[in-house]
């Protein structure tokens, strides 16, 4: 999913319908009212947003003004007749037009039948924009830019997971409320079942890893975003540096091809030559193209020719990264590290001559890091427990390498005064 960075500063939003479709099959105004109410309900079901229909006399006070218009309609974004563009909405903000949602009145707006364009499906999508979401490339997602047909019965509709994560990253997830949410107007359409009790647990699910405790198994800079892996979960930090969501995602739902029950990733890095992503788990490794493991993997770690100083074969990897300073790949294990000058995909690799060397050469950084990434201006970031260290671009023997807090700087956790890096018992609820 993608958010625009814009969101309403309030959770109670007024909405109004300024006019109704003028082409057959002529949905009744009461049907349009109900369809819009349920389309908004799809978003309020999973957040603490509340939508209130305004009366006709106070329509102009509404935050989300809904209207049907054709061709040029005074907002600078003309529609194009039947087909093509169907609707658009304005993102949240202070401007009067913010939140407004326009439907092309030259479409045949229908409800659930395939003869025209399903008004409910398009309305849910457009209200996603009116609340601050951009288009999503995920599948399934109601925020995909292309019309995907009706989405079924409006009374039982629930958002796909991608969209739920998206909207909750802007407005949080629904807190258990003692008073049932007010029912929406339900003229003429089957009365909706009473809204299901929100399944959001009142206490965070203890099995969900706490991002503020640190102790990440692997950290990787993939396509400019940073992934923190811990147990069966991962967190994702966008280029902008903001955490996509406080809630971790399940590795198995996104990185397709790792063994079922994967509960610990040792190291991950993105290969520079072909943007493949390498996962190390125990004495095996996988090569991914985007989020899919390439067939023929896993392969044994012995492909890498990692022989320790004492002549033993390395059985697992601690950390792996590409050092921007020289474009070489580095593999760390057991206090030693190897350097590779990687070419295109080959099964058999061999470290550069003169390796392994002792990790203590990376002065000031932990010699057994959880993982390492290159970030920002090519600096090397070493992660260990709940701290990280920055070795400035290309420097190895720096004197003042200071320990920083991963929880505070990356995971958006509040600074804990007694927390001076290392293990900390934040006592936070994640």
């Amino acid at each position: 999913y993608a958010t625009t960075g814009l969101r309403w500063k309030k959770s109670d939003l007024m909405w109004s319908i300024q006019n109704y479709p003028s082409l057959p099959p002529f949905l009744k105004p009461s049907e349009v009212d109900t369809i819009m109410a349920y389309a908004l309900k799809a978003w309020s079901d999973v957040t603490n947003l509340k939508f209130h229909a305004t009366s006709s006399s106070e329509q102009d006070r509404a935050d989300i003004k809904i209207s049907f218009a054709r061709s040029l309609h005074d907002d600078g974004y003309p529609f194009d007749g039947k087909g093509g563009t169907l609707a658009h909405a304005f993102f949240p903000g202070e401007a009067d037009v913010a939140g407004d949602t326009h439907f092309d009145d030259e479409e045949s707006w229908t409800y659930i039948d395939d003869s025209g364009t399903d008004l409910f499906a398009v309305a849910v999508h457009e209200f996603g924009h009116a609340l601050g979401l951009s288009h999503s490339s995920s599948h399934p997602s109601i925020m995909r830019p292309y019309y995907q047909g009706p989405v079924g019965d409006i009374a039982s509709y629930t958002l796909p997971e991608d969209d739920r994560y998206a909207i909750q990253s802007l407005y949080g997830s629904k807190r258990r409320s003692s008073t049932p949410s007010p029912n929406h107007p339900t003229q003429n359409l089957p009365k909706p079942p009473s809204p299901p009790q929100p399944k959001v647990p009142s206490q965070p699910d203890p099995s969900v890893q706490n991002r503020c405790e640190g102790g990440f198994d692997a950290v990787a800079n993939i396509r400019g975003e940073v992934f923190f892996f811990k147990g069966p979960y991962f967190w994702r930090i966008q280029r902008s540096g903001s955490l996509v969501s406080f809630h971790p995602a399940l590795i198995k739902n996104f990185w397709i091809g790792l063994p079922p029950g994967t509960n610990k990733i040792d190291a991950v890095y993105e290969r520079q030559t072909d943007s493949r992503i390498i996962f190390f788990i125990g004495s095996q490794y996988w090569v991914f193209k985007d989020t899919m493991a390439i067939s023929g993997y896993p392969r044994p770690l012995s492909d890498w020719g990692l022989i320790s100083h004492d002549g033993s074969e390395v059985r697992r990897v601690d950390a792996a990264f590409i050092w921007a300073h020289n474009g070489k790949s580095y593999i760390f294990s057991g206090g030693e590290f190897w350097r590779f000058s990687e070419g295109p995909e080959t099964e058999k690799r061999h470290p550069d001559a003169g390796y392994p060397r002792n990790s203590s050469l990376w002065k000031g950084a932990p010699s057994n890091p959880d993982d390492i990434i290159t970030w920002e201006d090519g600096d090397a970031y070493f992660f260990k427990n709940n701290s990280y260290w920055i070795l400035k671009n290309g420097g190895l023997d720096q004197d003042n390498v200071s320990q920083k807090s991963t929880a505070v700087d990356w995971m958006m956790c509040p600074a804990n005064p007694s927390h001076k890096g290392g293990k900390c018992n934040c006592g936070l609820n994640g």
Partner: protein
Amino acid sequence: DLAPMPDQYSRGVDWLSRYGYLPPPDPHTGKLQTKEGIERAIKEMQRFAGLKDTGKLDSDTLKLMNTPRCSLPDIIGSEDKLKKRRRKRR
């Protein structure tokens, strides 16, 4: 696949500009799109839609470009971001 008709190229380029995959042509510098830029934009659009990223206006891509859709762009304000970034840098 049949090579797209010449006007399909121009419509394809307009489509890519409209939905944020190509920067709008810059009237000040008269800078036109480059072939590589268009191919890169087509690949990005194909990846976003889950199509095979051929970089060509193949039939699947043209078909999707003709699918009814939301009129908001898929890539929001890349040049805005650029401006923002420039502002930040300034």
